[in-house]
């Protein structure tokens, strides 16, 4: 038995944040029932990366990643008969995950008040860009625009060139993954309390707020008046020689903020002449722009003759915080990732075998596991509905898009 075995979760979500939330629950054993539109299924089925040589609906690597361990049932909840099947389903599930724009839930009869009246035992989590009541100038959102509304956009990267645009951050969906993670932790906390109270809960996740909260250490100080705010793109930055430098085979990041780091660098470089002119505690007490520039120039000269993994290991052994800039291949090759089995082999009936990223927490008794690949569209429609709610309650074949 895994930690969430036995919980039934209905997934109305059909974009990255809600599907990621569902995946986090499913990989711990929750039974995730994904409702998909007959015919086209979740829109994430249309998004890349695509497995080579695959057809439209079953070839998305994104969908495959986000929907491991789930069942797919085709049902159009926006027509009356589908809505009635949905109402029946709600009597049999513990939690519901949605990520449609604000207002959509009300359209299918699932606003918080109705939920409390009709399905008081259900934990309902809604993930939206700006919460349940977005202002008129925030009705339309994508990950990029949420990233910019949260403050991260303006401040990415650090020590920015003011003439260049701020950058989008890593990958396409970081704001969605962040919100999905926050949603999952709120759902599990709610299920914990529900074991005693038998009461559901409405959870309102705003992607903007989740992202803003990820800068809590600085933002809390700013809103308290303890740290300066302003139009500077460097407002979140720390100043010093830290940064990314080219190596012979890629890039490395070096962090230096304390006298101990400086001493370790001296040991690693065998106390070169140029270091002698710096006070031992300059990083902490006398970190002038001139010293930072000179230090960076010497570090750049040195690192371009080094290999990133080897120099990182040598530095770490002396207490200098230096790491490689890894890419996807480095992660697959990482002895640490292999040791922790971060990548798991998954066989998908259409896409074949691939190494999927798993989760960053190892639970000794109930590890997360990928037992089943993402479902084909409607793969579990007939058996799934019948098992869940009994034969009689299943809507007509037209509502479910027929047998799949």
């Amino acid at each position: 038995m895994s930690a969430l075995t036995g919980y039934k979760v209905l997934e109305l979500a059909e974009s990255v944040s809600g599907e990621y939330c569902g995946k986090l629950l499913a990989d711990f054993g929750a039974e995730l029932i994904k409702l998909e539109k007959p015919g086209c299924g979740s829109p994430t089925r249309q998004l890349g990366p695509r497995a080579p040589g695959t057809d439209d609906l079953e070839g998305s690597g994104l969908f495959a990643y986000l929907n491991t361990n789930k069942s797919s049932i085709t049902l159009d909840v926006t027509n009356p008969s589908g809505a009635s099947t949905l109402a029946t389903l709600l009597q049999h599930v513990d939690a519901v995950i949605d990520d449609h724009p604000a207002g959509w839930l009300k359209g299918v009869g699932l606003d918080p008040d109705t939920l409390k009246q009709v399905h008081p035992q259900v934990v309902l989590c809604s993930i939206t860009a700006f919460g349940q009541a977005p202002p008129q100038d925030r009705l339309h959102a994508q990950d990029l625009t949420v990233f910019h509304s949260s403050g991260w956009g303006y401040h990415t990267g650090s020590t920015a060139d003011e003439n260049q645009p701020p950058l989008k951050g890593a990958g396409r969906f970081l704001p969605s993954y962040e919100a999905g993670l926050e949603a999952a932790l709120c759902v599990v906390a709610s299920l914990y309390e529900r074991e005693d109270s038998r009461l559901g809960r409405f959870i309102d996740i705003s992607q903007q707020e989740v992202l803003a909260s990820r800068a809590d250490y600085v933002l809390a100080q700013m809103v308290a008046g303890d740290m300066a705010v302003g139009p500077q793109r460097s407002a979140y930055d720390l100043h010093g020689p830290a940064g990314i430098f080219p190596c012979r085979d890629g890039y490395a990041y070096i962090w230096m903020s304390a006298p101990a780091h400086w001493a370790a660098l001296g040991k690693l470089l065998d106390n070169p002449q140029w270091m002698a002119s710096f006070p031992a505690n300059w990083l902490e007490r006398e970190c002038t722009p001139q010293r930072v520039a000179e230090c960076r120039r010497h570090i750049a000269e040195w690192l371009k003759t080094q290999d990133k993994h080897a120099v990182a290991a040598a530095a770490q052994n002396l207490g200098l915080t230096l790491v490689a800039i890894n890419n996807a291949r480095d992660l697959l090759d990482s002895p640490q990732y292999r040791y922790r089995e971060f990548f798991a082999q998954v066989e998908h009936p259409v896409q074949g075998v691939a190494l999927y990223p798993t989760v960053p927490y190892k639970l000794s008794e109930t590890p997360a596991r990928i037992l089943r690949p993402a479902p084909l569209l409607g793969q579990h429609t007939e058996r799934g509905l019948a098992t869940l709610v009994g034969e009689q309650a299943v809507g007509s074949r037209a509502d479910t898009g027929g047998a799949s």
Partner: protein
Amino acid sequence: MTARNRGGPLQGVRVVELTKVWAGPCVGKLLAYLGAEVIRVESEDSLDVTRTYGVADINNAPGFQSVNPQKLSVQINMKTREGVGLLLDLLGKSDILVENLRPGAVKRLGLGYDKVKAIKPDIVYVSMGMYGSEGPLSYQTGYAPCFAALGGLSSLVGYEGGAPVGMNIRYADSTFGASAVYGALVALLHRRRTGTGQFVDVSAVECMSSMIGDSLMDFALNGAIAACDGNRHAEMAPHGAYACRNGEWVSIAVASDDQWRALVDAMGQPGLVDHPSFCSLAARRTHGSELDSLVAAWTATRDAQELACDLQQRGIAASRSQSSLDLVSDPHLWSRGFYQEVTDSAGQAKTTTGPSWKMSRAAKVSSGAPRLGEHNAYVLGDILGLSAAEQRALTAAGITR
């Protein structure tokens, strides 16, 4: 109101923290915001650097206060055998332990999982390390930008054809913290249903990799290694941040041909709609630089906020790029209650960032961060049942202060 009756889904759960700096304290903060009673065990000989760095008063340190509201503090000297004994007694009456000390430090203190488990078999023991607690690279340490570098994020952030610029230096710790909270709560729920505790081993670097799962899938399926590509997006164009008047920026993401038509309409350049360089997503992506120049030329003289409003009315995702000044004055964040006032034991009120979530029957957020050892009497007396005389003796012996 005390730490044990704030409501919320975790009311009644007791958490002990052996944490420092940002990511570890963030775990306790989120658990406290969910209603748990969170006790920081602090040692004057080995203080959290955020209590001391650049501040005169360890009890009035803004960095510390930003990630430790709503918690209790007990001061125990963990370098003494008796101190460790007291901590183990406390763990015997707790549900979750969170630690993010340097690799191996808890074992050296005699507080490894096996030791704690012997006292409290069903403890949920959360260990946070850059690379996790075991494995060939687990000896390595680093700060937030190292997590992003190692996890694969930094290599994706930079201008087209350029060297990696990386994420903002502040990104990573709270994501690491939230991931640890999720692992802890899954384990807590398992314990609630089976009586079995467990060891939760969280890797900061893997937390980062989890934020680019689809990029890793691209490598797994196609062997593709993404290079820095500025603000480009495989499924949207235009997609980027464009300079506006007064040094402001607006972000615009166009996800369909309909939205492209609406944008061209707003730009007053209808000839662009069917222009062969821009008539489809594929064409717009091929001519991305030209497209960005056209949009940027249009935004350059406009007000970012007005422009975002105009585009929103036309159904296009757009947002002013918010600076720190914009964020702390964002009316929407204020109206949702993201910023909340907490009060410390001296009656000092302070505005801080509350939980990101809204939920029915939420825990109340009301207390500021604790002074060092502020709750010694509660922890030693009320929880551990030591008499006033016994507490005085511990203080006299230098075990508590």
